[in-house]
């Protein structure tokens, strides 16, 4: 594919515009500083931002967060909203294969000093109790088809009713852990077969569980509202819809190839295949995507329950005594129908977030009451071995990015490059010397996931802060990591 060089102009310190050219319907906007932009330019990600701007019904601009990197059709770190009433489309590539890949954060009442000498035991317990790695299956037994249908429709609520966690957890989950549009009738047999025995499994790649401590607090009031304190232990779980979601994406990408012809949609990239939101194909995809999203929420709810039990058993104390409580759960690969102001009018638009996180600010009605004064917690995990952040959105987030912000670090190095760079090095030992214990099932995983393979998440969050569309609340530092 011939590379197109797009002119860019810098609008402000951390914002660049890709002006409308050719068949672009709107301009592109990329949040980045000079340093991050140098890498972004080298990667054809700018071209992808411009390509997304070709989508029918796209509103205002094609957006990219500072952790942007090249992806399938849409860049990862991309946000695009379309207006269904103007023939706006839904594009599975704007969600990603790992539908509702996301992260949840669990607070505890344990201080780091209390459990520092038990980190190894805790990591081992997580490693044993939550299946991870390639082809991981079998966490809670194979489901029957009827039960899987319930998972698809009820999401995290299914897990709660099965004894994994409580109703209170649902309030602290985006969408209460369930998108209502789900229709199992639109999910194919192959996806079902893959989904039956993967609930409660971590998967592989950049999925992980992590034991952290809170090492910096930037906003005392918000941190208090979220239940986070300095030196307190917290647990992160990062995973998605597993093979169930990948299969649904695959099935619908195929369907969308046909839809593009049927609706005469001209696209610069085959992988932006899409259909109008208000079309049979569009509706079917959204309802199947919702099934996958709900599956992922059920998955994270189950894994959280397994993690809490592992902690309680290892430390020989009850979950209540340990103060284990869900802070929040966010998705970063999803499409949602949300109300946003467009040209002064409030409209229902279809917001694609692929490697981007919803960041509703204070007073937004979708933020849980306990957090409404602070805003929705935005979980931004760093790469293995470095910090993660909890942030909140601002009013500017709603105005400028359809209530969206970055999702994490974003890769800068290919897996093969990372493996070469890691040759002869013991990544686990290097991390251990820095006080971080890692356990992984995959042979190559550690090398590929080495810290240098990713952008510096501190920089990414810094750009969002300087651009005014996210504010850090706390910083977390890792103590132990379980990787698939």
């Amino acid at each position, binding site marked *: 594919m011939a590379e197109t060089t797009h002119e860019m102009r810098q609008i402000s310190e951390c914002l660049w515009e890709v002006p409308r050219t050719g068949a672009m319907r709107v301009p592109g906007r990329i949040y980045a500083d000079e340093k991050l932009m140098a890498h972004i330019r080298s990667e054809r990600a700018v071209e992808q931002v411009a390509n997304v701007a070709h989508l029918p019904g796209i509103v205002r601009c094609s957006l990219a967060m500072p952790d942007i990197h090249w992806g399938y059709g849409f860049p990862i770190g991309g946000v695009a909203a379309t207006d269904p009433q103007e023939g706006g489309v839904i594009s599975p590539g704007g969600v990603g*294969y790992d539908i509702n890949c996301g992260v949840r954060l669990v607070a505890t009442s344990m201080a780091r000093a209390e459990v520092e000498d038990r980190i190894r035991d805790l990591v081992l317990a997580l490693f044993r109790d939550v299946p991870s790695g390639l082809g991981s299956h079998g966490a809670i037994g194979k489901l029957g088809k009827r039960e899987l249908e319930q998972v698809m429709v009820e999401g995290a609520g299914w897990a709660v009713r099965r004894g994994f966690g409580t109703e209170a957890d649902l309030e602290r989950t985006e969408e209460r852990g369930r998108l209502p549009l789900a229709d199992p009738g639109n999910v194919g047999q192959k996806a079902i077969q893959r989904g039956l025995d993967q609930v409660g499994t971590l998967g*592989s790649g950049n999925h992980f569980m992590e034991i952290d401590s809170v090492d910096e607090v930037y906003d005392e009031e918000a941190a208090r509202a979220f239940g986070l304190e300095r030196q307190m232990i917290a647990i992160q779980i990062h995973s998605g819809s597993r*093979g169930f979601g*990948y299969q649904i994406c695959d099935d619908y990408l195929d369907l969308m190839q046909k839809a593009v012809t049927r609706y005469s949609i001209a696209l610069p990239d085959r*992988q932006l295949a899409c259909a109008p939101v208000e079309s049979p194909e569009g509706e079917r995809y959204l309802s199947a995507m919702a099934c996958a999203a709900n599956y992922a929420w059920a998955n994270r709810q189950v894994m959280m329950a397994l993690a809490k039990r592992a902690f309680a058993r290892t430390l020989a104390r009850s979950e209540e005594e340990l103060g284990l409580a869900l802070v929040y759960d966010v998705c970063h690969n999803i499409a949602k129908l949300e109300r946003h102001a467009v040209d002064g009018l409030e409209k229902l638009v279809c917001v694609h977030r692929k490697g981007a996180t919803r960041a509703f600010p204070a007073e937004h009605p979708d933020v849980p009451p306990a957090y409404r004064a602070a805003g929705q917690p935005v979980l931004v995990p760093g790469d293995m071995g470095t910090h993660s952040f909890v942030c909140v959105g601002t009013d500017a987030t709603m105005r400028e990015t359809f209530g969206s912000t970055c999702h994490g670090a974003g890769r800068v190095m*290919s897996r093969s490059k990372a493996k070469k760079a890691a040759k002869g090095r013991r990544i686990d030992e290097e991390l251990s010397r820095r006080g971080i214990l890692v356990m992984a099932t995959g*042979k190559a995983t550690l090398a590929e996931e080495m810290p240098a393979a990713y952008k510096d998440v501190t920089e990414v969050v810094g750009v969002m802060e300087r651009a005014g569309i996210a504010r850090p609340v706390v910083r977390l530092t890792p103590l132990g990591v379980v990787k698939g």
Partner: protein
Amino acid sequence: MVERPSYKEIEHTADVGLELTAPDLASAFERAAAGMFDMISDLDGIESEWRREVRVAGRDDDLENLLIRWLSELIFLHESEHVLLSTFDVRRIDGNLLEAVVVGEGIDPKRHALKVEIKAATYHDLVIRETPSGWRVRVIFDT
């Protein structure tokens, strides 16, 4: 006896990919499959104990679509049957239809080092083209 997979791994920031050439269309599809599974887990360690006949229908003489459908079907078998595949014998192939026999064994975590989780085969920079030096293939996988 498993044929040593002949492909070149290509650089890609977020994902993995391969490139290869083959003397004919059938072997191009076979080598693409072998390369993909060699990226998942070394083909050397896979015994021949599990066998399946595979039939993939493409669309409108679209070879790119047929290649993606073929690789997708294999990823599906890998996950749903918990198997690793090492031998691929394409018996019939044209623009719309592929019939093959695939062989491998059940995943054994003790013997099989699992290297990369491949979520899907993508259309990005996809190449399946006849050239003077044979059939050329390039596939990027989402990982």
